[in-house]
């Protein structure tokens, strides 16, 4: 089976493990993810902070290319890219004038009706129904599922029926044999785009998140967003200096968790690339 795939820039760089793990599990499940031909950066925070038009035109180019490649569904693992793409699709459907202007600049047709899936929707649709056959080794840990902002907000557009206390990732982890803890910071902001420009703010915001997870007894924090991951994992020093204590709780991508449970090695899943060592094992 072939499904459209938009990795986004982070997955080619600082979040390679996310890319490697999603490709690894898809391969093993016999699902082929086809990259959009010649895709470009979605513009991320920078674009919509500085220029309205780029914040729409950059994602729009990818949507147009995906249509050109004849894709009906597009998997976007990076929550930030996912958010930008969905927002763009929404904008363009709301604002006819803008759509015309952009299509004109793209010089490509744009139906703007492609189905965009975030990683959770992708897993629910193509993996969860096949867990019986796919999951070999239960991942028996207490985990805190962290969704962040971009998968659930703005709820008027993202349409998660439980946006203040989402459950989709929790239920997937439960099915992997883990115990998804009820905690309070599932959708709090981690500091996102300030990773480089305002690390001290990231230290505080991410620090509060990590603290609540650890206090609830989490042995791992599960994420589905490269920004959340780099802030919680790579920015751990900033977090520890804010919390004034050491915390060694690992931060793993949901796709890595599934990889482990499917019997894929840490190396294949890129888990060795983390800053905070991942000490999770499945008993084989």
């Amino acid at each position: 089976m072939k499904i459209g795939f938009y990795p986004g820039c982070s997955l080619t760089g600082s979040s390679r493990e996310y890319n490697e793990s999603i490709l690894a599990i898809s391969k093993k499940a016999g699902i082929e993810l086809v990259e959009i031909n010649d895709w470009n950066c979605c513009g991320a925070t920078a674009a919509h902070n500085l220029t309205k038009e780029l914040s729409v035109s950059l994602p729009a180019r990818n949507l147009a290319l995906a249509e050109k490649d004849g894709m009906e569904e597009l998997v976007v693992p990076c929550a930030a890219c996912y958010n930008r793409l969905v927002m763009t699709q929404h904008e363009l459907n709301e604002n006819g004038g803008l759509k015309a202007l952009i299509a004109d600049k793209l010089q490509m047709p744009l139906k703007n009706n492609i189905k965009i899936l975030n990683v959770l929707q992708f897993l629910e649709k193509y993996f969860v129904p096949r867990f019986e056959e796919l999951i070999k080794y239960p991942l028996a840990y207490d985990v805190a599922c962290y969704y962040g902002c971009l998968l659930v907000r703005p709820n008027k557009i993202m349409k998660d029926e439980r946006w203040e206390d989402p459950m989709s990732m929790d239920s997937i982890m439960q099915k992997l044999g883990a115990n998804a803890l009820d905690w309070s910071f599932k959708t709090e902001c981690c500091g996102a785009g300030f990773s480089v420009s305002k690390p001290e703010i990231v230290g505080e915001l991410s620090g509060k998140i990590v603290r609540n997870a650890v206090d609830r007894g989490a042995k791992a924090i599960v994420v589905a967003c490269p920004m959340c991951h780099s802030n919680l994992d790579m920015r751990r020093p900033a977090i520890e200096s804010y919390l004034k204590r050491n915390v060694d709780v690992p931060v793993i991508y949901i796709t890595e968790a599934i990889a482990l449970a499917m019997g894929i090695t840490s190396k294949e899943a890129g888990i060795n690339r983390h800053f905070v060592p991942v000490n999770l094992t499945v008993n084989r």
Partner: protein
Amino acid sequence: MSKIGVFICHCGENISATVDVEKVAEAAGKLEGVEFSTDYKYMCSDPGQTIIKQMIKEKGLTGVVVAACSPRMHEPTFRKACAEAGMNQYMCEMANLREHCSWVHDKSDATTQKAIDIVRTLVEKVKHNKPLQPIKVPITKKALVIGGGIAGIQASLDIANAGHQVILVEKDPSIGGHMSQLSETFPTLDCSQCILTPRMVEVAQHPNITLLTYAELEKLEGSIGSFKATIRKKAKSIDEKLCTGCGLCTTKCPNKKIPSEFNAGLGLRTAIYVPFPQAVPNKPVIDKENCTYYQKGKCKLCEKTCPTGAIRFDQEDELVEIQVGAVVAATGFNVMKTSEFPEYGYGKYKDVITGLQFERLASASGPTLGEIRRPSDGKIPEKIVFLACAGSRDPAKGKPYCSKICCMYTAKHAMLYQHKVHGGQSYVFYMDIRAAGKNYDEFTRRAIVEDEVNYIRGRVSKIYEENGKLIVKGVDTLLNAKPVEIEADMVVLASAGVANPGSEELAQKMHISYDAYNFFAEAHPKLKPVETNTAGIFLAGACQAPKDIPETVSQASGAAAKVAILFSQDELSRDPAIAVVNRCAPPLFSTCVGCFMCATACPYQAIGEELITDRQGNVIKRVAKVNPGLCQGCGTCVAFCRSKSIDIDGYTNEQMYSEVMALLNND
């Protein structure tokens, strides 16, 4: 040849401000068949009516058009005036220049022209009006009151004390409603049950009141003066005559873990239960959903223990039909549940409760016997936070309205907390303090100044749990929007007052209108606050909109007074706008061909058949016949009649066609 008088009202400036009334009067004067036309500042005033009467006499008018406000407002007034001048009242029609013209358009020639068109239309109608005689219907001097809360109790007692029979229907096993759940009442802090229970007993003992608890309205037919109500008496599984209310059965019932409705889910009850000790009637009912016998087929412990053998498992719902002349709807309200607040935890935090639940905690008859203890672990909260406007004034939650009572009861709650928990700290997050009412503002001030409740102006964005505390993330908008975070032990949501579940269906059963939030609609926002659009049905209490006890009681007495006024007459003259099958000379007798399409269309089974016979008694023709007693005048039959043989007085085909033509030919 008709001689019609047209009387244009300025309604002070309400009409004349945007409509050139002189011009309208002048134009009306030129219409064919109009004998006289004039304009006056207040037509409904005494001098105004005098003008109409004089002109009817002087000019020998055959018809009158009063161009003023809505007929729903003053049609009776002017028809009465015409009758007094010796004209048949049904020869008087009103042209609605205020609600349908001057109030909804700006001053312009177009507006004046529209006014002229409306007048001309009604003039043409009146030309085809026939003198009619009002239909007299006897009044059944018995009232149906739906809902046994303080509103229904007050209305029932007032009507009963006026000497009329009342049937009070309550859906729960006991009367008392929300008021019986309350701890103490603002602004006097007197105990709610202490002032309510005597009234409940009075209801039970009143010779003029028949109390039907555990019962609901099934169907309502008929109209003012003679309604037929069908009541479903739900099976209590108890023989009330035999039951002494000793309560032995409730002690033996094995199902003891059912959340008690009376304690707003904070206490437990058994499957066979009396909702609360002061219940009226003080006899148990079996809740079938939770009864082991009804669910599993065995148990019957209650039956075995009952000393009088009053348990009746085979009892079934009973439908009773009653004739009443008037209905008072007093079905009350409900509050939003904590589960409806995503940002406050979807109800997953036990110690985030509603104001109604707090009432039970503060009530001496409550699960904690009046001690403020939090549901999760029974600890006494040292820090408590109250959120006003929880759901109210919140379009995003579908409730843009103000629930009106929350500001006061929140102040009361904080006050009670401070009185009961010494050294405790209480906070109230509010947007505005709405304490309009006698001694109300003084009350909220007292809470702030004397009881040292910390009022913080701002809404709360999120409540979450961190090491055993509820973290309340709020803001103080009066301190340059400073974020405020409180580590609370308990949080009380003054959650929005909402219409009762099922109120929509009930309104439909009674044919009364209701608003976008399913609260029952009054007939006029100012002048008919207790009437509904359906004559003979009145409103009392929070089923119309959230309101406090004093307001509810006043409205209930108002409704009762309306009923008493209605019952002060022996018969009622009903609008003669009813259907008639035409008659004509033999051999045709009537153009009716006897297809009886009308009968199938009639919602009231008001159309029967009539056999036309010759002298020898041989049937010549079968035609439709309308029973004037049953016909309500909807006119559906008219639209169904192929041969145009059935017509409806007051809205005849002739009248409607001439209206259409007049309306469109304005050149």
